[in-house]
């Protein structure tokens, strides 16, 4: 059951240009969140920006009673969020949505994160520990400046591969392209592998296609503009094989084969 609460900002820092991490004190959410869920954050008491902004839970530490979100400054709301200060309180709703499913019968997981899409994957990587033996993480970005630090994934004992569109850091190419060698090499291109992905729509679609081609399950974290975040407004739907589904409630994580791409 999600709640609405005021969470104190324990830390806020700029990890790279326009790229921030906020640490929030939230006993309830850190205890109850699962990987892939998100929080809906009220930016301002003013009427503009009006609506809450959704952010994946990047990290959740129940012992320390904290959660973390990772975000890029892309518009007015994220800009204002980046100006918040330690000890201020953020009005948040969470944990929201349906997160990643973690099957017990897999030997390998490939996590693919494009840009800020990496956000829910660290939480996932940690959750996979002890459940899926081999966890590969592919971190993609436009260029070096936008590439997200892989340290935390290394610490989570993942095998990390980084790539950029322009080759300015890591390998040159798009993140989904680097799934193929892993799949081929491991020779377990079958029911023992699972793909998790989060990032821009074209990247998700590419992952879905590869998953279909190799007949392996894939779970994708989708995005759509949201108003309520709690399933009441019907604002955030995407087209699926079972009709319009709400990203905030039925997702954000969907099975790849469910999604109807435009």
């Amino acid at each position, binding site marked *: *059951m*999600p*709640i*609405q609460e005021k969470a104190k900002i324990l830390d806020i820092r700029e990890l790279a240009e326009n790229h921030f991490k906020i640490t929030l004190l939230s006993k309830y959410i850190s205890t109850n969140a699962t990987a892939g869920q998100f929080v809906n954050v*009220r930016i301002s008491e003013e*009427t*503009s*920006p*009006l*609506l*809450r902004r959704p952010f994946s839970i990047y990290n959740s530490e129940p012992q320390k009673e904290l959660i973390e979100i990772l975000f890029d400054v892309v518009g007015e709301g994220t800009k204002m969020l980046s100006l918040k200060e330690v000890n201020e309180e953020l*009005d948040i*709703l969470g944990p929201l949505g349906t997160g990643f499913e973690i099957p017990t019968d897999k030997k390998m997981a490939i996590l693919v994160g494009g840009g800020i899409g990496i956000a829910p994957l660290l939480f996932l990587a940690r959750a996979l520990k002890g459940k899926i033996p081999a966890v590969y993480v592919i971190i993609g970005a436009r260029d070096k400046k936008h590439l997200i630090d892989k340290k935390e994934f290394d610490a989570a004992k993942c095998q990390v591969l980084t790539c950029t569109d322009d080759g300015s850091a890591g390998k040159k190419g798009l993140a989904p392209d680097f799934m193929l060698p892993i799949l081929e090499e491991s020779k377990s291109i079958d029911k023992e592998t699972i793909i998790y992905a989060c990032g821009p729509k074209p990247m998700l679609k590419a992952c879905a296609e590869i998953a279909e081609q190799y007949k392996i399950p894939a779970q994708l974290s989708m995005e*759509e*503009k*949201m*108003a*309520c*975040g*709690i*399933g*009441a*407004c*019907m*604002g*955030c*739907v*995407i*087209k699926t094989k079972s*009709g*319009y589904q709400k990203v905030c409630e039925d997702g954000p994580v969907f099975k790849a084969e469910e999604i109807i791409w435009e």
Partner: protein
Amino acid sequence: MAINLAGIEMKNPVMVASGTYGYGKEFADYTDLNKLGALVTKTVTLKAREGNPPPRICETPSGMLNTIGLQNPGIEKFLKEAIPFLKKLKIPVIINIAGETIEEFAELAKILEKEKVVKGIEVNVSCPNVKSGGMAFGCDPDLVSKITKSVKKAVSAPVIVKLTPNVTDITLIAKAAEAAGADAITAINTVLGMSFDLKTGKPKLSRGVGGLSGPAIRPIAVRCVWQIAQAVKIPVIGVGGIMTSDDAKEFFLAGAKAVQVGTANFVDTEAAVKVAAGLK
């Protein structure tokens, strides 16, 4: 703060606006629904409607646009899925209905007449009139009159007609509803608006235009309520951009007997209950 609104007994004059609170259940985790004056459910239609393609919403200065397209499971499924939960509530439940034809309104009303939990019917005449080429019913006093009459004939519960502000003279529509037997009027539904995405060069909403709601439209809603309150004798329910009890008070000064809280529920799950508490 208790009021009797056209026969509906409410502990306080604050309801939630149709379409912003689902069928109530969605907010039950966050707030005590029984603290509301009444609950108005999302528009239900005769047949299921899958709604419009995404993107369905976008933010605008102090407001938002939506083009949900009345997505709902249709009256039959609604009765099965929503009514059991609604029955457990201790507050009056008002069902908001819309038809694509005048006949559909009457048919919906007849079906709901059998449900004891229904304490009022809110008639959403802001949906496009399929027969007359897409212009909303609510823009035409004659159509509003016909719809009101047919719904009145079908149900014994009070009938509330919800008006669109997208008309030259809203008092004409309000008077038509009153003359046709409406027990109350809700004003306003969303204001027709549009926004473009500079990156794609296309409208931000799939259908181009959408309905503007939120604080941005409050002055328009207050004006409509004031105009209507002077033109009719039946009670007016004010809605549009109410975020706080102070905002609600503006509507009472304008002549409203009750208010509805809509978009604010998205910003604060307790908004409607707080508005009610703030009126005490």
